């Protein structure tokens, strides 16, 4: 186990180098020039000024050299500074990252809240009306474009009911916790609903598989109550993989929050990312990609490790 963990952690290093290098090259392949954005504000477009600016951000070097410089800074925990605002990327993200994190955690909570009861019911009442309804909900949830639901809720709910309208400005958690949670509830619910589709299907199939196990038949034969069998024998074993599938959904969650933050004007990392791509703020784009990739890589490792801890039959070598 320890050797396996060590090997996985070691392999994560070249992976993260690869990911950041691909992103680094792609950012520079976006047509356009970040200095044009900066200088556009001042009306100055003299080649000398541009060259000086490029030199300041070492954009005049070749990409490989730039990457080495950037990576060196990152390894010293310095993410550089935003070309657009001039503030350090760390300080720019300090307020935005927690917002996205909170939104994601709330979305995971909602998705489990929806998915587990529906998936479990669907499995223990297989091929009944409840099962069909549950499965239809799951497939619908997978097909529903979250941004569309958000758009409709904002207008329709605002028009006909007095709720669902996002407030004019963002309410920080530290100032007004209740107002903040109430504000994020709707976007988190939409994100969570989209996520719940695959969790629901996974829960159902895991439950069905476990229900057919010999020890469940034994439990029935012993004359245990259905409730006891489902809760004590089936759920305890079936829900292990469900825990892990949630971890694998993280990339989808991040992508979803980019869109939903845009729809609901939430000042999180996803919205900042879109702004940065549009203004070609290289250091910010690279930093956000690095953060998300790191989270994804470690979530994958964590999923595999938890899996083996929760299920003693699984042994990695």
């Amino acid at each position, binding site marked *: 186990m320890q050797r396996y963990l060590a090997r996985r952690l070691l*392999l994560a290093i*070249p*992976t*993260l180098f*690869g*990911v950041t290098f*691909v*992103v680094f090259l*792609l*950012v520079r*392949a*976006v*047509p356009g020039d970040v200095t044009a954005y900066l200088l556009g504000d001042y009306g100055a477009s003299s080649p000398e000024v541009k060259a000086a600016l490029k030199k300041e951000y070492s954009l005049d070097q070749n990409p490989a050299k730039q990457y080495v410089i950037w990576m060196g800074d990152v390894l010293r925990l310095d993410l550089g500074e935003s070309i657009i605002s001039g503030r350090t990327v760390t300080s720019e993200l300090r307020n935005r990252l927690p917002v996205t994190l909170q939104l994601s955690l709330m979305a995971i909570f909602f998705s489990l809240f929806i998915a587990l009861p529906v998936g479990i019911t669907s499995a223990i009442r*297989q*091929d009944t009306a409840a099962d069909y309804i549950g499965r*239809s909900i799951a*497939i*619908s949830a*997978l*097909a*529903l*474009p979250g*941004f*569309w*639901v958000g*758009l*409709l809720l*904002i*207008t*329709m709910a605002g*028009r006909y009911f007095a709720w669902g309208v996002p407030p004019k400005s963002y309410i920080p958690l530290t100032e007004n916790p209740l107002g903040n949670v109430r504000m994020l509830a709707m976007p988190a619910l939409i994100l969570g609903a989209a996520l719940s589709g695959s969790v629901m299907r996974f829960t159902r199939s895991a439950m*069905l598989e476990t229900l057919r196990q010999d020890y469940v038949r034994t439990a029935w034969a012993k004359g245990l109550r259905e409730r006891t069998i489902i809760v004590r024998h089936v759920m305890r074993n079936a829900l292990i993989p469900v825990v892990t599938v949630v971890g694998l959904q993280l*990339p*989808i969650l*991040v*992508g*979803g929050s*980019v*869109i939903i933050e*845009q729809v609901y004007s939430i000042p999180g990392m*996803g919205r900042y*990312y*879109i702004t940065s*791509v549009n203004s070609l703020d290289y250091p910010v*784009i690279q930093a*956000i*990609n690095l953060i*998300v*990739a790191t989270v*994804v*890589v470690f979530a*994958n490792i964590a999923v595999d490790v938890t899996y083996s801890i929760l299920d003693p039959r699984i042994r990695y070598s």
Partner: protein
Amino acid sequence: MALDAEILEQYALRLQASRASRFRRSVFSFIRHKPLAAFGGFVVILLIVMAVAPWLFTTHDPDLNMLSQRKLGPSGANWFGTDQFGRDLYTRIVYGARTSVVIGFGVVFVSAAIATTLGVVSGYFGGVFDILVQRLVDIGISLPGLIFIILLVTSLQEVPGLGWKIPVLWRIILGLGFLVSLGSSRIIRGATISTRQNQYVEAARITGASDGRIIVRHLLPNVFPVIIISASIQIGGAILTEASLSFLGYGIQPPTASWGRMLNEAREELVKSPHLAIFPGLAIFFAVFSFNMFGDGLRDVLDPRLRGSR
């Protein structure tokens, strides 16, 4: 001799007929046992016809601006109303099917081609090549989803070094296809490794079959269901991703009709003309729902592990 040939010919004809009827029978049994999946399949076929010949379904010119009739609500003349330029929204949505269908199938085709090549070759030969490919796949599946695709679609606007422009539709198909392929190449690699251990592969090798022949004749037919299953599940996701990209403004550009793009343009008009948002969103939902339903049914039929259960 002449008689033998005649008998053989008749036999071949009968075989052909029975094959056709077997196909028909399996279609009917699919409809009977998987009504929802069959419905999904029906919508899928409808969408494909719409993509090929949209004019069969419409009454208006998709690009005709009728500026005097902008943003009208649904009516007898304009079933879904009209858009910001006075174009018939129903007609625009029918024409938008082409974008989604082309993206969906294009992505899956690119992905299946890359994933099969990588997966089968990597799984069959193993060794250093396998290790190298698997590290590349590691990088690929760690690229952060939509965030990365946005970058991919905005950046590679021309072939590096050659200066050929790549239209955004192709950027989405190739970029998304490549990204999706890496994940499924893992699955195909696994299937290849487990098939390779069969005795008939060993037997084929002993009789002197070349690697190419073993891959094409013995491995591919067995890995094929895995390819079809992962492809059918990916189509809906690809359509949804295009819609998200176009909604954010990075995808299909006007005047090409795209459902996601329509939603993007509807944002400004939401309060006064909600129909501009309702119908394109419904179209996305229906298309993805149908592809998923159909893919699900297909998986149930093709996946040997699920056969017999349900």
